[in-house]
């Protein structure tokens, strides 16, 4: 075992930090705050001219898509180097990684043509995907989804509704899971389509989140103020939009979700408040009172810090598994339980360290750090719900990891 970074990786981290110190000017931050959709886990931050310019410079350094093959616009580099770059940028609220982009699944399951078409533009940021999984009646039990895609010659005709399609109003494409066969068990009749958002028949309607009015400051866990519902009304797409084989979409999607979770973004959304609260109590007082002197608070801070280290180490373990070929049994699911729940514990504990100041939202007089701790309380639990809830993840740890048997389940309505 080796818990250290190589000298080259350390040098890369220094380079990225120096780049950020030089290029992340107050003007860039202002633009990000103005245009922010809140920091989720994907690349959904709308890009104004300064941020677009910044991304171009990041690309010129060779820091986008490091671990992707050169032929698809990547750098043929190692995954850990990509992680380091992702981590440094994520700490300043810039998502350079490809988590949530759909790229890992396309690389794993796409045709040669799809890989050449999508991946370079996903890396550069020219393309971005909204994720079309959840439906009004299909959340945790995603395989019950009802959005239909019916084959007609060389096309599919799609009808249905998707929920929480967060980036749908800015994305160029949607990664759509739809039912292509209703006569087989529910997991066996699902396919995935890579659908351009400008296809006729697609309607996007905003869903406002509890982070709206006032909007969460940058860096908030699930600080997005808007998500969407997306309607498909006789949407006709070419057969070439199919990712993987017809009716094999469940496997493709699960694999893609697993790959999408690995990386810095998911880890950091669960631990940034741990750093923030330590750094805050070191430097601030309420009048004459410093929470840093309270033994109960000190004990809690240390407890949370240890848990945050476990988040980091579980992420590093997942990275190690990826570097060894990506053969996860339960480790990814375990990380997806531990880290979000830790994020919630931290957010809640901080409310009890700040007391009444913990209520103050962004823009309020006397708000602590722009109200990020209050906004985080509203967002943190979302990371335990999205991308597979912690309950579903625990099922996976128990069944795949520990070999416990599947039990009787209440039978749901047939789609």
């Amino acid at each position: 075992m080796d818990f250290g970074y190589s000298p080259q990786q350390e040098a890369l981290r220094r380079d990225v930090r120096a780049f950020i110190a030089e290029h992340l000017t107050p003007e860039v931050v202002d633009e990000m705050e103005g245009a922010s959709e809140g920091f989720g886990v994907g690349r959904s931050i709308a890009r104004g001219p300064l941020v677009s310019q910044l991304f171009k410079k990041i690309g010129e350094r060779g820091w986008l898509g490091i671990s992707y093959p050169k032929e698809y616009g990547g750098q043929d580099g190692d995954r850990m180097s990509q992680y380091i770059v992702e981590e440094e940028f994520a700490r300043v609220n810039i998502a350079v990684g490809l988590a949530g982009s759909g790229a890992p699944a396309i690389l794993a399951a796409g045709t040669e043509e799809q890989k050449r078409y999508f991946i370079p533009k996903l890396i550069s940021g020219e393309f971005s995907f909204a994720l079309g999984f959840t439906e009004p009646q299909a959340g945790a039990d995603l395989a019950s989804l009802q959005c239909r895609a019916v084959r007609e010659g060389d096309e599919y005709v799609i009808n249905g509704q998707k929920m929480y399609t967060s980036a749908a109003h800015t994305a160029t494409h949607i990664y759509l899971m739809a039912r292509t066969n209703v006569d087989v068990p529910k997991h066996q009749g699902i396919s995935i389509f890579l659908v351009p958002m400008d296809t006729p028949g697609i309607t996007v309607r905003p869903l406002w989140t509890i982070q709206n009015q006032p909007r969460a400051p940058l860096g908030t866990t699930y600080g997005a103020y808007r998500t969407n519902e997306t309607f498909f009304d006789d949407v006709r797409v070419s057969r070439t939009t199919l990712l993987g084989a017809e009716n094999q979409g469940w496997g493709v999607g699960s694999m893609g979700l697993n790959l999408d979770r690995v990386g810095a973004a998911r880890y950091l959304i669960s631990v940034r408040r741990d750093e923030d609260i330590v750094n805050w109590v070191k430097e601030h007082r309420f009048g004459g009172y410093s929470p840093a002197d309270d033994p109960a608070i000190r004990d809690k801070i240390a407890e949370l810090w240890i848990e945050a280290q476990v988040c980091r180490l579980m992420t590093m373990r997942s990275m190690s598994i990826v570097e060894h070929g990506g053969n996860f049994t339960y480790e990814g699911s375990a990380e997806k339980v531990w880290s979000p729940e830790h994020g919630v514990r931290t957010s809640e504990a901080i409310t009890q360290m700040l007391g009444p100041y913990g209520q103050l939202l962004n823009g309020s007089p006397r708000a602590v750090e722009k109200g990020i701790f209050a906004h985080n309380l509203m967002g943190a639990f979302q990371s335990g719900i999205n991308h597979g809830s912690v309950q579903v993840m625990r099922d996976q740890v128990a069944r795949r990891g520990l070999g416990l048997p599947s039990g009787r389940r209440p039978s749901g309505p047939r789609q």
Partner: protein
Amino acid sequence: MDLLLTDEEKMLRHTAREFLEAECPTTLVREMETDAKGYPPLLWRKVAELGWQGMALPEKYGGQDLPLVYVGLILQEAGRALVPLPLHSTVAAALTIASEGTEAQRQAVLPAVAGGESVLTWAFTEEDPRFLSETIRTHAVGDGEHFVINGRKLFVDNFVAADQCLVACRTAPASQGLGGLSLFLVDTASPGLSQIPLVTLAKDKQSEVVFDNVRVSRSSLIGPLHHGGPIIERMLERATVLLCAQMLGATRKDAEMAIEYAKYRVAFGQPIGAFQSIQHLCADMIMWIDGGELLTYEALWKMDQGLRASVEVSQAKAFCNEKCEAVVRLSQMVHGGIGFMMEFDLHLWFRRVSAWTMRLGTSFEHRARIAHALIDSPGRVILGRSVPVEAEA
């Protein structure tokens, strides 16, 4: 960065596990609970042939010069099997002699340890049980070529089995920090030395040790006079992280027993392991053990690189104390009434893991150390970067 075990590390673990499965049935564990010395000397010599006692000792003293991580892997297996051997106390003391002793001291002690002919232990804690140097009142006073030790030590592990004991003594008044402490290597058969056995949850061999004008020669001083504090601190850190490894090995086995039990115990027409309420308990158990293991391995790895690992050790112990206790309690829960029965083996693990959570620093003490490192020094903290560490306050 590669957190997975190498093939060599896996092989070491596998070999140790196979050996202990053959050599250490639970009947032996039970038998040694009432044995006067608490361990079978024959098995002690057998594991010496495998090189366990000398694993991280220098080759010139019969050791193998392997990293501390390997010792951690062995202690995990020792914990898994609950092997009744004084391995933890011996290794912790021997490593201190190897790193801090004089050439003569090393020659005198280490080959016998590596050869399985000697058992060591160490004595730190006194009546005030806190994990702090200022609690040390046992004092050693110079008298010509000798020191005379008077005082009482508590919770001394394997004292009845040990040939020699490292004893933390006060040789100068407690002033700031670690000042005034010295470490002595004391023969357990010395005149004036006596022990009172303690009856423990683990039914292991711990003693209250009484020093009544115990004379030791000046050559038994390990490290510098009055400034033994940092040496003692490092010894306790190593002992702590190795105890974490031992706890985790035992806890994982305990959890595995619950998981296996849940697969065949039927209630309401199906194995209880098919109920999500049980599945989710089991998932948490494994997640916590993994977390403790990652923290422990990182601390061991840092020590192997020669880096300070005080914070990492405290992270591991505070986490293991609470999570290992929770795991063995949940395992009892999954087992139901049978786990409460003396004839069923589960309590062998439950009692030991619980006892180990109470030794070498409580969760509160370790968290206080972490909080001190995080909060009381200037500069911003970043997860994954070293936290500034000062000497103990």
